[in-house]
């Protein structure tokens, strides 16, 4: 591209223009599909809504209702803690198993490729199918989980996993982990395989066993992968919607035992056939809070983790 005419741009200006021209398409796309809807939702949250019809400007009244008025205040807190709990459990179980699988797959040569494919397979399944399958498996009347427990003499442990207020959230978090575990496995595996053999060999020559090698050599060098998985798990846990929706319905049944912020947002904004009416103002307020929370925490988290990464 050249700029004909009597006056030519200085090098700096023309470089800036180049950068702007290259960024423009992406920026435009970002503005249209990301920034505009977010700004829209933020604006919606500042109005009074009568069902689907927008009323006057009310400032922060929707937020005030959401955080102080029963039952919204209680539902918000319940849902928030369920998101936190999901994050913690997913970190420990899904990502812990992912790391374990990655170590096993990296160490062994025979059959590793097949196992890698098997571990990754559920990731490729549609979430709706996963939810449906596990609903069948966990069904208290004819599901195989309770039938298998009875078969090995543990019939006393059988329960309505998805209908019991004490087990429902754990059950769907585990289903979620089953579906996703292949993803951290692959990421960790790639990280482990990228570690130069010389490091491990040097450690072995220094007399380090498998334990210290894992803790002192592999884990520090895996920091970039761990960080990205932590951030993604956090975003996933706080945006969680599909699986609870498919398996437990829009109110997070039973008795709000599996209610999460995503469900609360959806049913507030759009209503539900058999339960509630839409209230776009409240729904948008929840969306704004979720967005802010995820943005702030994941940015801070990323900065902190990146700094630690450098130190390691």
């Amino acid at each position, binding site marked *: 591209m050249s700029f004909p005419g009597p006056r030519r741009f200085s090098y700096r200006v023309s470089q800036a223009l180049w950068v702007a021209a290259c960024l423009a398409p992406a920026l435009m796309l970002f503005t249209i599909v990301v920034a505009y809807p977010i700004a829209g939702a933020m604006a919606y949250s500042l109005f009074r809504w*009568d*069902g*689907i*019809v927008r009323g006057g400007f009310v400032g922060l009244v929707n937020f005030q209702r959401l955080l102080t*008025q*029963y*039952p919204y205040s209680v539902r918000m807190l319940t849902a928030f803690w369920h998101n936190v709990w999901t994050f913690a459990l997913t970190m420990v179980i899904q990502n812990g198993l992912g790391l374990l699988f990655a170590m096993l797959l990296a160490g062994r040569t025979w059959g590793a490729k097949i196992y890698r494919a098997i571990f990754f397979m559920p990731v490729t399944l549609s979430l709706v199918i996963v939810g449906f399958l596990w*609903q069948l498996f*966990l*069904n*208290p*009347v004819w599901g195989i989980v*309770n039938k298998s427990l009875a078969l090995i003499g543990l019939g006393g442990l*059988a*329960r*309505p*996993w*998805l*209908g*019991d*207020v004490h087990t429902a959230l754990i059950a769907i978090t585990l289903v979620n982990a089953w579906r996703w575990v292949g993803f951290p496995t692959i990421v960790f595996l790639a990280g482990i395989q990228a570690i130069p053999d010389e490091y491990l060999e040097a450690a072995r020559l220094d007399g380090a066993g498998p334990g210290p090698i894992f803790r002192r050599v592999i884990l520090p060098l895996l920091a970039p992968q761990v960080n990205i998985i932590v951030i993604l798990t956090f975003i996933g846990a706080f945006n969680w919607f599909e699986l609870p929706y498919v398996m437990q*319905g829009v*109110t997070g*049944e*039973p*008795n*709000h035992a599996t209610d999460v912020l995503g469900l609360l947002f959806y049913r*507030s904004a*759009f*209503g*539900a*056939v*058999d*339960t*509630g*009416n*839409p*209230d776009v103002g*409240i729904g948008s307020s929840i969306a704004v809070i979720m967005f802010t929370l995820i943005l702030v925490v994941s940015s801070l988290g990323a900065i902190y983790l990146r700094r630690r990464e450098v130190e390691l």
Partner: protein
Amino acid sequence: MGRRVVTMLLIAVFTVGLWPGAVTGQAKIAMTFWSWRGEDKAFYESMIKKFEAQNPGTSIEFQTYKPTEYNTVLSAAMQAGKGPDIVHLRAYGALQPFARPEFLVPLEDKVPELKMFARQWLDGARSRADGKVYGVPFAVQTLVIFYNKKLFKTAGVTPPKTWNQFLAVLKTLKDKGVTPLANGGKEGWTLEVAMGVLGPNFYGGSNFYEAVTRGQTTFKSPQFTAALAKMEEIRPYMPQGFMGVAYTDMQQLFINEQAAMFIGGIWELGYFKSQNASLDIGVMPGPVARDGDTPWVSSYDDGNYGVNAKSPNQALALKFIRFTGSREWGQAFTDQLKQISAVPGVEIHDPQLQVVQTWMRHATPYIMLVGFRWKNPTGSELIQNDLQGLFSGKMTPQQVGEDLTKGLATWFEPFRGQ
């Protein structure tokens, strides 16, 4: 073909050909009819054919959406000033976002057929804001208990009339190794339906309904909590792990004759019969407290047909809406869909529906849907989750009553400070 017919045809062809005005004057008016009732498509298309035959040059396209997405799709279209000419609408609270003159045509002075409709069903099509009727009610639903006649006979029990007989029947069935009730608690709305069947005979049906909707009493009243306590008594007779038993599981249990009773809505009848032709189904109302009492049956308007205020073919759409309020429509609806039409004077031929219709002389509004679904949190949302709390042993009947009253107090003035 007779000679006269040929002549007539020729005349017709020539007239149309020679008179261009006839062609443009007879231009087709294409209308759309949106609905969430995909399963009733055959019925609607046959009725549309009839209308098209009586109104040459008209064509109506019946377009269906997923039930769970319907309201969202419709509200997006209506807000944009678009949407169909003829609209399938839900009733009561779920109708309210649409029940405004900028979205729908008020029908009372445009559809004379509505004058014959029972007031209690018209209330399901009425706007809370301006009191106008925005739809023609299409079906009336009633909540009942279905039972398997064969399983009853084998166990040597007869349909119970009173609560004590009901419990005795449940116990006998269980002792004989039959799962007495198909009902589960995984989906809260099925528990709300069960409460709608078993509750009114204990909280006092319409008398309590009137009092509570006027704010003269609350859900904390001993009458209501006593009804909730009665609900707890059926817990031992529900399937194993009933809190994990979802709606489709319930249907399967009853259809495959693995459970003797199903507490549900009369709309199940057609489905049950279509799934298992050899299933011998009996229907009974919720058991009463004392021998000789007349049972209350919870009933409501299922939904309505309306006309889009922005429709360019309003006159024709209104003509179609008048057709939906006619006896002919109602009769076909009841005969083909095995549901009770809201059109007055329709004759019911199905023996089970016939008896249900007689109980409806003592109908009481399905309490949360008719009375407390106007704003959030709705009574239904609250009671569905509270009943799950009750059935999992997490809440007592008193706590349920308190939570209902407290939740509704956020928008129902008379409950404030109660």
